């Protein structure tokens, strides 16, 4: 059975499932757009090195590695660890955070550090 056949078949639960999926997808996109921040690794440093975020709100952090070396965004305080290959970007979801400051480091290049400050 082809996909279009499934769609046209007179089976309401397919329509319901698809509708539910679309709703689910659009809500999760909606949440993702609600709060998002970016970090860039350039010349061995995080830009910005201090990132202010709203406390109590989950957000998506997109990290772009503009260097020629792989980096590993790591923060024990945030319980996050992610390799960002050279020239690539990746995202992590963080929070909701209590007010406070959460340091992070490029574990492959310890001189690159920064912090997320939740207010």
């Amino acid at each position, binding site marked *: 059975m082809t996909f279009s056949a499934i769609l046209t078949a007179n089976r309401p639960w397919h329509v319901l499932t698809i509708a539910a999926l679309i709703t689910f997808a659009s809500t*999760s996109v909606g949440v*993702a757009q609600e709060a998002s921040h970016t970090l860039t690794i350039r010349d061995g440093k995080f830009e910005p090195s201090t990132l202010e975020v709203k406390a109590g709100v*989950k957000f*998506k952090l*997109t990290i772009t590695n503009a*260097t*020629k*070396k*792989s*980096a*590993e965004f790591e923060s*024990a*305080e*945030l*319980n*996050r*660890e*992610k*390799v*960002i*290959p*050279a*020239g*690539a*970007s*990746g*995202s*992590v*979801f963080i929070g909701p955070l209590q007010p406070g400051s959460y340091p992070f480091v490029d*574990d*492959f290049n*310890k001189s690159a550090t920064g912090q997320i400050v939740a207010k």
Partner: protein
Amino acid sequence: MFATALIVFREVLEAALIVSIVMAASKSVADRGVWVAGGIFGGVVGAALVAIFAGYIADVATGIGQELLNASVLALAVVMLGWHSIWMATHGREMAQNLGAIGAAVSSGHRPLYALALATGSAVLREGSETVLFLNGIAAGEHDAAYALLAGGMIGLAGGIAAGAGMYFGLLRIPVRYLFSVTNWMVLLLAAGMASQAAGFLVQAGLVPDLGAPIWDTSWLLSEKSLFGRVMHALVGYVSRPAGIQVLLFVATLLGITVLTRLFGTSQHAARKSVTTPV
């Protein structure tokens, strides 16, 4: 060079500890070396492939490809370790009863060594791909440092393997009577820790609720950045500030495998009994 050695050591250490547990758990099983070596080789090849396609993987699914991959690879390892534990529970008794060479050879012939090989391969793949990416990045950045890079990499690799070997021979010092109970527990905790790590990746990817993060903070007691903290991370998935769902998955995996091994272990035993008991 020192920084390179340290990072390579850390990554190799985690995989080497898992390999040493698997080797100790399968002590005196014929062909286990071939299977485990196959798992390591597959893991290395997989790590190279992951590193080559890292940029692509990172971009998949709006930046969470790496988390999806890690969680899947971890889940595979959990299932394989669980399956091996259950198999051992159903066959361990007869193996213990027929300690003779024939009994051991027959039992070990059916033992799912592929499960151990896959679990090993998954650990090598995860840690290896990070190592390759790290080394590759350094190599691209500083061409003149190739010698230092190579030396650092080799020192780190040798150190990690030495630590794994140390753990293996340490485990072998345990009297044979207790060895397999110890390794059974270690495999169980390993699987639970991996399930917890997989949950952590899914939280990081925003795919599952964290159920409270952090649910506690034990960084005052043991930092996961310390050497012992990293060893505990490899062995039981220790993190100082876990999300609630990580703790939940840890406990659920622990209970799930224990219940299944008890269930299959006793049912097998009961079945055997009912066959041999004259009616």
